[in-house]
């Protein structure tokens, strides 16, 4: 690396720390910081300053309902890692993950925003796009708040009059040996599945995880593509059902949109029938 190249990368460190670098430039800066002691120290120093910036925001007291919403959602079920998910929690999780429904990957910018809004509307069973979207989103938010309240009431009343959700587990092997998955589906094969993945390794650029439902004839249908968060976790909410499905599987495929058929033996899979 030449002196000029180093200087160019060094000049991007502050923008990288502020999350203000373009994706490619940020990735180059990240890679450089890992291998350059001087820039790693610079990044460390600048990050110490950047993490203090939130305190510059004017303090605004949140509405009381926010605490209630969070506590109701938490009390509707214990953390996913410590116990199975309750049916009330399925509602909460579906809401929290409603933006991850769509298995197709939209483009960037405005198209992505519109797709996210559309996914919210589809999941809520509400039609309509365009100018109505904002109004409907507001209505949906209000519905979510009501559902929170209902969840809380249901939890307190300990009502268990309907069949609970059904749970299955996925186990990793090979490169995903440390990974696991939990599949929560509606009773009686009704539409609505939540996939919780944990322990997933980070993927190289250009790769995605793809979730599949495989039927008794070994025909795979796509559910979603995703990249895990910093914890190696991800949650997918689908409006599909497990009717006729024999296996749920995850493969590593080319991104950003994944592929139509699995290209490898699934390193993370589990029987659901």
């Amino acid at each position: 690396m030449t002196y000029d190249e180093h200087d160019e990368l060094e000049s991007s460190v502050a923008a990288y720390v502020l999350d203000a670098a373009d994706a490619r430039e940020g990735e180059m800066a990240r890679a450089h910081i890992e291998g350059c002691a001087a820039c790693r120290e610079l990044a460390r120093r600048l990050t110490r300053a950047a993490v203090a910036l939130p305190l510059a925001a004017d303090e605004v007291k949140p509405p009381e309902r926010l605490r209630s919403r969070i506590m109701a959602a938490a009390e509707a079920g214990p953390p996913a890692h410590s116990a199975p998910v309750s049916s009330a929690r399925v509602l909460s999780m579906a809401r929290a993950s409603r933006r991850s429904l769509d298995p197709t990957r939209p483009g960037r910018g405005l198209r992505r925003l519109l797709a996210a809004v559309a996914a919210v509307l589809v999941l809520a069973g509400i039609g309509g796009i365009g100018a109505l979207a904002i109004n409907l989103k507001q209505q949906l938010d209000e519905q979510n708040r009501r559902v929170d309240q209902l969840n809380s009431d249901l939890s307190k009343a300990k009502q268990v009059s309907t069949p609970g959700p059904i749970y299955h587990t996925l186990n990793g092997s090979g490169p995903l040996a440390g990974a696991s998955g939990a599949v929560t589906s509606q009773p009686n094969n009704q539409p609505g599945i939540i996939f919780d993945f944990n322990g997933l390794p980070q993927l190289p650029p250009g790769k995605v995880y793809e979730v599949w439902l495989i039927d008794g004839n070994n025909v795979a249908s796509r559910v979603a593509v995703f990249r895990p968060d910093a914890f190696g976790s991800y949650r997918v909410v689908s409006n599909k059902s497990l009717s006729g499905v024999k296996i749920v599987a995850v493969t590593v495929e080319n991104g950003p949109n994944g592929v139509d058929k699995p290209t490898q033996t699934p390193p993370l899979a589990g029987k659901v029938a």
Partner: protein
Amino acid sequence: MDEGGDLELAEGLAAGDVEALARLYDSYGALAYSVALRVLGDPGRAEDVVQDCFLKLWNNAERFDARRGSLRTWLITAVRNRSIDYLRGRGAHERQEREIPLDAEASGQGSDPWHEVATAIERDVIREALASLPGEQRQAVELAYFGGYSHREIAEMIRVPLSTVKGRMRLALEKLHSYLQARGLVYDV
């Protein structure tokens, strides 16, 4: 809240103790909401973001490592990042989160009884630090951090070369670091 308090809270969260979550919210809920509202300017969305982030921490608490940074830093960084994702119209899954380096947390926090006072003191110092910056440096940092603008967007917006914006960002953060360090709000390794 000190490191020990964070550790205790993290253990409570990992054990599924909703009281730990309540204490976490009582400690950092207002700060989290303030940051989300500053970035988004929309109370409804700010609530959604704060709820998402608290529940994410709740659901992944067993993997939180208090030695790598405080709960506050993790939470507030997540709130800011998720808010920016909203602004940019991208899913949170597209973000490759960076780990907060060791000792990245401001240290001016007292134990629980003094939490609010300590936070208020920190807030004052950080505002003083920002106010001490030349206007163009403060602008570059605030547009990036709270506005979610990239350095290229900022350069176009204020009509200066990209290299100038990069330089302003670096100078601003260097000065902030020095200012905070001089007042005992940043630990060095």
